[in-house]
């Protein structure tokens, strides 16, 4: 018998990572390839889909975390998207000299400035929104749905008061326009940028969630709020932080979405809402990885079906949701809740 001192400490048993949903993305892309036929078209469509998916992910990630942490589903999340996009029109409108210049650096500075302003304003408004709209109705789902919906209505009207009810153009800076050739496939530069930016946000978020104490607390809170609270941590404060960051990310997503569409309308947020819900349901409410995969699936499928069968494309999201829920009724990555 070995003495206790010499035995190597056995590592804690780890949960086997569930990689099955991850495989959906390459499978979907590969299935689409023979259907589309031409490889160059496929590359173009795939990049368009990924870019769209990244933007949706940036917007939806905050929503899913907020739900996971406090069971708060914010129907007014769309307001932050619209707000971010309209802030960008103002900021870029002030910097027309910079955006129309051919210098990549000046363009970049202008877009970064727009994104930063949009994020801080959306985050700030998010803090107010949390305090005024959401805090009084914690734990009352019915009222929560109604009140956040009301916040959405009022927010949209206030945006119309400030920026007017019409669509406003949001043009890409000169250096971001046009596309580059990859082999025979033309890929728009902006889509590449969106994909890179989306990956960066995903990487940072994953890092924070898995390598910092705050991230650990958030993940633990999503899993079992009461247990974390009973260990002496203030989930409320954490929640406010997550809400503000989520709103700021929605603002960033709004800027990216606006640049993608080249124009912004006040109804942007309420139009995207349905898409967001589908994504977070597919991913499993509260799961960031699930949200990422869900967003990519939605983006890719929308672009593939849009090319193959435009009529089907209008329902591709609903179809996707039904199929995923038949496979995994709680979403791709169910968050273990009691």
């Amino acid at each position, binding site marked *: 018998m070995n003495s206790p001192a010499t035995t190597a400490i056995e590592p804690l048993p780890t949960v086997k990572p569930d990689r099955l949903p991850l495989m959906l993305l390459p499978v979907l892309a590969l299935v689409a390839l023979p259907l589309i036929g031409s490889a160059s078209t496929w590359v173009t469509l795939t990049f368009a889909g990924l870019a769209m998916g990244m933007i949706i992910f940036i917007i939806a990630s905050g929503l899913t975390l907020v*739900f996971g942490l406090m*069971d708060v*589903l914010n*129907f007014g999340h769309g307001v932050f998207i619209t707000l971010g996009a309209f802030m960008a029109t103002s900021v870029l409108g002030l910097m027309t000299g910079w955006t129309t210049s051919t210098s990549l650096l000046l363009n970049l500075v202008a877009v970064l400035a727009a994104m930063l302003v949009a994020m801080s304003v959306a985050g700030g408004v998010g803090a107010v929104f949390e305090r005024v*709209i959401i805090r*009084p*109705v914690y734990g009352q*789902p*019915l*009222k929560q*749905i*109604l*009140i956040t*919906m*009301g*916040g959405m*209505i*009022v927010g949209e*009207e*206030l945006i*119309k*008061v*400030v920026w007017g*009810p019409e669509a406003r153009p949001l043009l890409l800076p000169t250096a971001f326009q046009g596309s580059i050739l990859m082999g025979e496939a033309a890929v728009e530069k902006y889509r590449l940028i969106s994909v890179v930016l989306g990956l960066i946000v995903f990487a940072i978020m994953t890092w924070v969630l898995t390598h910092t104490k705050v991230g650990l607390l958030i993940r633990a809170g999503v899993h079992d709020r009461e247990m974390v609270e009973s260990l002496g941590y203030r989930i409320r404060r954490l929640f406010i932080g997550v809400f503000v960051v989520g709103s700021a990310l929605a603002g960033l997503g709004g800027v990216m979405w606006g640049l993608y569409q080249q124009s912004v309308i006040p109804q942007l947020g*309420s139009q995207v*809402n*349905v898409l967001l*819900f*589908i994504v977070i*349901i597919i991913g499993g409410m509260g799961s960031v990885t699930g949200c990422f995969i869900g967003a990519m699936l939605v983006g890719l499928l929308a672009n593939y079906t849009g090319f193959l069968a435009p*009529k089907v494309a*209008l*329902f591709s*999201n*609903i179809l996707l*949701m039904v199929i995923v829920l038949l496979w995994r009724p709680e979403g791709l990555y169910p968050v273990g809740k009691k």
Partner: protein
Amino acid sequence: MLNHLLSGDLPRSRVLAVVLVIILAGLLLTPFIFPGAKALNVAAKICYFIVLVASFDLLLGYTGIVSFAHTMFFGIGAYGIAIALTRMGPTWKGVAVGVAAALLISLILSLVIGLFSLRVKAMFYAMITLAVASAFMTMASQFSDITGGEDGLSFKVPELLTPGFSLREAPFLGVSLDGKLITFYLLIAVTVVLFLLMLRIVNSPFGRVLQAIRENEFRAEALGYRTVSYRTSSNVLSAMFATLAGALMALWMRYNGPDTSLSFEIMIDLLLMVVIGGMGTLYGAVVGAAIFIVAQNYLQELMKLASSASVKIPLLRDLVHPDRWLLWLGLLFILSVYKFPTGIVGKLRLSAWRKRTAQPGA
């Protein structure tokens, strides 16, 4: 008699009773005291919205289910009439077929949605219905061969209901007795019947169970009620009444398109009307619909005045701009949810009840 007609659910507040009588009298007398097509249209809109809002209240206020697919059923009713009358010509048979088909479709759809998704939490149900409704709206605007697409369908109604039909040559009290007038009174009659029917439903033992589920689902289930089947029945019933409201709207407008019956704006209007009027009281539907639609049509005029009076003050001018009327109603909505979740009707009943109990010997 009256007690029986109202299923024992009297207004229970003198102010409320007076308001309800004023609304009913106002509707009945609209053609005689408010001349012009606009007033008649507003009154008609109040009528079919009373049915629609009351049916939504059945779901939201009485059973505690938030559905965003209610306008879908409203749209099915309207499209049922529109498609049947376009295909079969302006006959009563067409009306009957349209209503029957629409009711059947609504029945099946609401049953399927209910059975599939009413087992889950309120949040999921709200989200899923939102997705289904948006898919349905896309469908309606895409299958333009049947639905007329974005343009919608204009159609002829049976001759009795057309403005060209005349009951008597000479006008009565300055109002010509044409088909439009007949349609209007028919609309009011059907509205009253449907409203009383819903009042009967919510005051029946079945309605009590729904309220029990709203208050505490777990306890209702523990008492032995199959909550899922009750919730599903409530869902189906409310969908059927919404379908009928849609049919009424189509018959009145002689037109239907995605924007008039399916759009998300109508869903939001509905929410506002139910909450401002009072959730969980059908009278709230009457008050909410009347206030909201009158505000929608006449508040803008008032705001136009305020706006022109404040041209010189930049921000205020934009805030009271006539197009921003929804902002103010939205704020009222948020305040209602916080401060008086039972709405105007609940508030009135509460103060009447306080007055009654405060009296010595009462």
